[in-house]
């Protein structure tokens, strides 16, 4: 049963990502990116990493996709304007990177994720916060740059679309 669920969510993630690159309309592309993120969040839920799954939804869909949509709608091309070039190259590179990451992850998983203290769903909240905010505080701060990356990415996307149109 988890196999079926895994393949379903993986298919949603990959199809969403492909549509995000390939769709003619930037708005559809942004929404496909959101669907892809939702697939990733579901995969996290499947891995019993509910905390990451919930924040994947809140941060990536609730903030990053909305930032992209917002930028696209405010400064992007008008509705129905033609697509840009380089879609096939981008698709090829995307598939290549995804395959590399997938293979790398599959090779690394048995050894990389075996910890002495598995954080089960009954994991202590205080202990979890301790590890997140004390042990990994620097990494957390670096991760928060994702918003800056999203703003810059969305602006670049919208600007280049307008420039070529």
């Amino acid at each position: 049963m988890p196999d079926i669920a895994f393949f379903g969510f993986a298919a949603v993630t990959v199809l969403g990502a492909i549509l995000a690159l390939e769709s003619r309309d930037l708005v559809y592309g942004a929404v496909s990116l959101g669907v892809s993120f939702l697939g990733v969040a579901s995969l996290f839920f499947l891995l019993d990493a509910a905390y990451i799954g919930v924040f994947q939804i809140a941060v990536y869909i609730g903030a990053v996709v909305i930032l992209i949509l917002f930028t696209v709608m405010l400064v992007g091309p008008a509705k129905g304007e033609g697509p840009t070039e380089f879609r096939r190259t981008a698709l090829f590179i995307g598939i290549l990177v995804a395959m590399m990451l997938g293979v790398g992850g599959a090779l690394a998983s048995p050894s990389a994720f075996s910890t002495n203290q598995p954080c089960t769903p009954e994991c202590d909240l205080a202990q979890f916060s301790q590890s997140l905010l004390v042990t990994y505080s620097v990494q957390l701060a670096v991760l928060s740059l994702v918003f800056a990356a999203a703003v810059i990415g969305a602006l670049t996307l919208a600007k280049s679309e307008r420039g070529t149109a």
Partner: protein
Amino acid sequence: MADPISDPIGFSLEIMTSPLFFKVAVFPGLTSIGIIIALFIWLDRKITARVQLRVGPLYASPLGGVLQSFADLIKFAFKELFIPRNADKFFFVAAPVLALIGGAGLVGLIPFTPEWQISNLELGLPAFLAFVTLSPMLILLAGWSANSKYPFIGGLRSLFQQTAYEIPLWLSAIGVVMMAGTMNLIGIVQAQSKPWVIFLGLSIPGWYIIPQALGALLFFITATAEMERIPFDLPEAEPEIIMGWQAEYPGFLFMSAAGASFVRLYAFSALFSVLYLGGWMGPAPVPALLWTAIKIIIVSSLIILLRATFPRVRIDQLLRAGWTYLLGLAFLNIVITYLLVVGPRI
């Protein structure tokens, strides 16, 4: 891979008679959500009318027109589905329906009593708030897809408003998590079960509305803004942008869009009663489920009373209040909670 099912009829019957199926389909799931939403629409119209010295719905049924919203529902179902010619058809249809489904999904996370809950997640509270963050995307898409001026303005206003008020909403809910030590909604209610003794054996319920008074007020204000109810109904503002993002919606789709906001009213009232009013806790003779219902009705009636009483704020006032005062007060609330939780230990 799953085994082939040997007895399909027996299997289906087994599923349909299981408690989970009853919960999802009847209560607290889909059927009850539909009926409660219709009753909420009636309550909204009736309370607003009484405050303004009007009568409100009157004729449909002897009980003060309580069947009026069911009659409206039937009327909407038979209206023509008129989609504007240059609209983006996919998102125009999908956005309000998805908003309604997403709102109904929020109700599934609420524990009405420990038994009457569809999905008991360990991270119930952040899951609820995370699914709330999906709604500005749907509303923006709904406004954009109509390809018309007023809906688009309404969609952008909704985006500004909801993203500005999400952060104080999360921060004000953190106070409750700090006091309860858990993000599970049942755990949060159980943490409120111990009454506080004031003096001479006189005790009050240990509900978080007392230590978290500031947090509860912030949560109430930001939740009202997230629901886009008056005084924060800028995305719909009838006199300015004629219903905003809902302007172009026909019959059934308008019903979905309007229903979505009432589902959220229901879900947020229930969440408020769980976080701050002790959920199903209450003196014994009244059953637990009825306590939950009473608290939900009180909270939602308060939100409806705001609609009847206050004028709409301007967009600049709204955003300034959200990003400065509410955010600052939310951080202050966290500091106060920290002192309340850690103070006694020092």
